Structures are given as structure tokens and as C-alpha cells.
């Protein structure tokens, strides 16, 4: 879907990205992570030509992006940013409709798409359609921001630290939404963050950057199981490294057939092991019942299997 070939980016004397080679496949949830100055935002902005690369080639859907007019390219790529940037003088629906309107969609198609997106982002249409951005909370604004980015059904969604300014609870629920939206729409998402937990939670592939170069690109699980070097290890953290390991594995992978166990606060098969461990500690037990959403018992999880 997106391919960086030998990309360098210099601003005057300073080199921000050096010899980057990276391919992002269709349907991937690719999270770029690094400390500030690592070049992650620059890499993201090169995809929609907000920043032009100095040398090399960036291909998008099999065309070098410089052969596509910036406006045309950007209308095919959703864009959501930390400061949201909703247009304050437009209602929520007008904000969401921006790109479809630019593309000249018929009014009834735009209308239908607005309804669909408000639903997808869990925004009550009755309440929010005619509201202005300043009447919304930060979390609601970012939901509208994501809806606007998705409005014209773009091939790719770029997100630049979209949840960085939100409180932990709101961020948590929006992360859950993103996972769901990615699963439902199958969009290719390129996401920039400096929060490793966010990266591990959302990504199908994490790209760790330092000094404008890729240090390691791997699935969260591979990253945790085989960090490439000390830099990656430091990035993954020391104290709760074990917990991060647990957070990328599910209960279903470690559970045994159902036997007598504490049923209260049962976990779901698709929950991660970190959550299951937390429940066991809270319930002071060494085994816990695994049930489906409908309440059917499907297995038992033992503490010894969690730490295996």
C-alpha cells in the first residue's frame, strides 16, 4: 500500500530521516514510535506530502506520490491530528462532510455517510449533528476528527498522536474504538505515538524509530519476545516488561478445560493475560473461570499457566 524506498529528509543542515526503507501493507495497523526527534511525525507527513521527501521514492497504491497532485492525494488519505483541528465555525456534520463535499458527492450520499460515521464512532446523531465543536468534550471532538478523516472512505488513515492530549479514561475508550474500527473497516492505518503501551495495544506492527532510522519493525509479540537490541529493550521498559509480555497474549491460548474455579469476575477467552492476572490477584485465587460474553463456561485459567 505504502512503500518508502531509500528516503532521506533534511531540513537545512539537519537530517531528520536517513535512508528509510519501509513497506506498509494493505490492512495493516502500523504504529510508528520513537522519542521526540526520531522522525516519526515527519515520516507520517511525507505520506500525504505535508512534508516533501528530499531523496528517494515513496509509492502509494503503486504510484510515486509526487506524480499525484497534493490535494488529490490527501483526499484519498484520511488525516487526524492531536490538536484535532475541527473547523470551529462549522457544525459536526459539516466538519465530517468536508472531504466528500470537496469530492463532489451527491447530498443524499453525504447525508447517509454522516449518519454511518456518527454511528461508527458512537456519537449520538440526535445530539451532535448540529452541534459546534466548542460544545463538545475533548474526546468527542477527537471522535468527530476521526469521523472526518474516514468520511470519504480513504484507502489509508494517518493519525498523528491523535489521543495524546486526552485523559487516560477517554484515551482508553478511543483506543478500544480504533481497534474495533480497524477490524470492521479493514483500513490501512499509520499511527504515530510516543506511548509504548498504546503502540503494543493497537498495532499489528510496531516500527521503532531512532534518529530517523528504523531500529526494529515487528508485531508486538515478536517485539517483546525478541527485542533487537538494548535500545528496543529500554523502550519496552524494565519494571513492567513481564506485564507487557502478558498483554499481547490471550486467555484462550493458555486456558485448560473447564473445572471448578472461581467464577466471579470471570474473564473472556479474548481478554489478554495481563487482565486475567490482575483479576486473579484481586480475587486472591490461583485459578479463574473463563466464560464467553453470553456466560457459557469454556475453560479455566491457572496462575501457573500464566507465568509459564
Amino acid at each position, binding site marked *: 500500500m505504502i512503500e518508502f524506498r531509500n528516503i532521506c529528509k533534511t531540513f537545512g543542515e539537519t537530517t531528520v530521516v536517513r535512508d528509510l526503507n519501509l513497506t506498509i501493507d494493505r490492512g495493516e495497523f502500523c504504529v510508528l514510535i520513537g522519542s521526540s526527534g526520531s522522525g516519526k511525525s515527519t515520516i507520517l507527513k511525507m505520506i*500525504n506530502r*505535508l512534508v516533501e521527501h528530499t531523496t528517494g521514492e515513496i509509492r502509494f497504491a503503486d504510484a510515486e506520490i509526487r506524480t499525484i497532485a*497534493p*490535494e*488529490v*492525494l*490527501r*483526499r484519498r488519505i*484520511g*488525516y487526524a*491530528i492531536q*490538536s*484535532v*483541528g*475541527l*473547523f*470551529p*465555525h*462549522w457544525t459536526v456534520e459539516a466538519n465530517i462532510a*468536508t*472531504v466528500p463535499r*470537496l469530492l463532489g458527492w451527491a447530498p443524499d450520499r453525504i447525508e447517509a455517510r454522516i449518519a454511518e460515521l456518527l454511528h461508527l464512532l458512537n456519537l449520538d446523531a440526535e445530539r451532535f449533528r448540529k452541534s*459546534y465543536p*466548542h*460544545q463538545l468534550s475533548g474526546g468527542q471532538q477527537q471522535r468527530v*476528527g476521526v469521523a*472526518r*478523516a474516514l468520511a470519504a472512505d480513504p484507502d489509508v488513515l*494517518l493519525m498523528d498522536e491523535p489521543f495524546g492530549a486526552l485523559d487516560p479514561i477517554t484515551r482508553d475508550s478511543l483506543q478500544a474504538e480504533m481497534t474495533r474500527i480497524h477490524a470492521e473497516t479493514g483500513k490501512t492505518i499509520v499511527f504515530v505515538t510516543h506511548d509504548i503501551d498504546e503502540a503494543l495495544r493497537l498495532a499489528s506492527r510496531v516500527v521503532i524509530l531512532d534518529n530517523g532510522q528504523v531500529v526494529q519493525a515487528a508485531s508486538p509479540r515478536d517485539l517483546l519476545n525478541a527485542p533487537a537490541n538494548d535500545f528496543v529493550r529500554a523502550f519496552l521498559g524494565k519494571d513492567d516488561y513481564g506485564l507487557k509480555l502478558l498483554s499481547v497474549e490471550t486467555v484462550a491460548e493458555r486456558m485448560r478445560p473447564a473445572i471448578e474455579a472461581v467464577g466471579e469476575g470471570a474473564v473472556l477467552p479474548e481478554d489478554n493475560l495481563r487482565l486475567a492476572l490482575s483479576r486473579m490477584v484481586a480475587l486472591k485465587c490461583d485459578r479463574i473461570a473463563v466464560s464467553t460474553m453470553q456466560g457459557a463456561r469454556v475453560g479455566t485459567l491457572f496462575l501457573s499457566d500464566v507465568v509459564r
Partner: protein
Amino acid sequence: MTMHMRFAAGIVVFGMLLLALPHSAPLFAALFPALDRPLYQQQSFAALVLAHLGLVAAATVLAMVVGIGAGIFVTRRQGQEFRRLIETLSAMGQTFPPVAVLALAVPVIGFGFWPAFIALALYGVLPIVENTVSGLEGVDPAAKEAAEGIGMTPLQRLGQIELPLAAPIILAGVRTSVTINIGTAAIASTVGAVSLGSPIIIGLNGNNTAYIVQGALLVSGLAIVVDMGFNLLAGQLGRWKVR
């Protein structure tokens, strides 16, 4: 709604003043018994109001085209170098009293409508340029980045995002410009332009206090009504903020 009503009331009161004034000779005769002709009758008051408004409107239109145009230009990448120049010119211009501009225009252009028009337009440009620049500068950078990032062309960004968001501040500049020019247009009668200043100037020359009162009443009334109109317009532009 109250702003609409106040504006409507202002227009009605001003209209009544305009209708009553031609029949007020007995009143002014009583107030100023020493005067032979207590009522200004060289031109009708309605014609003077129209001429005054026409002068101010024509000058303001030119000032807006030039002022907003220059403000847009110096806030674009291509015009950045001219920013300082425009700001310096505008600051310098503000220190000039409008009367001086008027006086300077006469030797260049002569007497009549045109020197008044040029002087008013020139002077009116300054607050409009200043406010256009600060209005456009004040647009939330996040909104600008988003507009660019989702694929608006530079012209679409300007027309749909930047100008509408800067509009209240630009309007405030236009309002200042118009307010100054309604006053200056009265003085423009000294260079031979027909305006509500005509009775005032003639009254001053001929020691006719009644003429001065009549002219001053209408100029101040006009200034108040026009200002109410701007108030109404400002409320309309900022509607999204208070909902």
C-alpha cells in the same frame, strides 16, 4: 432579535428626523431669532444624506478591496517579505490625522468629490489591513493544518476556513474605517465635496449656528445608525460561538 429591533428603531428615528427637519423652520427661528434664514435649504437633507453615504460607501468599498487584498497577500508565503513594509506603512498612516490627508489630496487632485474619495479610501485602508492581518494570523493553526491535510486547495482554505474565521476581526476593522470616514466625510465639504458637512461648513463661515446644528444632528444620527448596523452584522458573523 433585540439587536434587530434596536437597529430597526434606529432607522425609524433617523428617518423621522430626516422627514421632520425640512419642516422645522419655525422651531429654529424660535431658537435662533437673530438669523434671517434659520433652515438650510441649498440642498435637501435627504440628498445630503445620500451624497454622504455614497461618498463613504464608495471609499469603503475601495478600502476593503485594497485592505483585505493586501492583508491576504502578506499572510501568504509569497507575500511574507512585504509584511513589515505594509505594517510600517499602516502604522505611519495611522499617525496622520484624516484632515491632513484631505488637505494633502487637494493640491494633487483639485476640489470636489474625488480628493475626498481618495483621502477617505486611503485613510480607510489602514484599519482594514491591520485587522485582516491579525484576523488571519489568529486563525487556529490546528484548523489550518487539518484543512491542508485533508486536501483543501490554498484557495479553498482561504475562502472556507481562514476568511470566515477572521471575518469578525476584519469586520471590526471595516467598522473603525467607516466610523472614522463618516466623520471625515463631513470635513470633506471643505474641499468641495457635497456631504452632511456642507451645512456645517456654510454655517461656520456665515455664523449660522442653526445650519451647524442641523448638519451635526444628521451626521451624528447617521454615525449611530450605521454603527448599530455593524453591531448587528458582527452578531450574525459570530453566531456559531454563542450557540
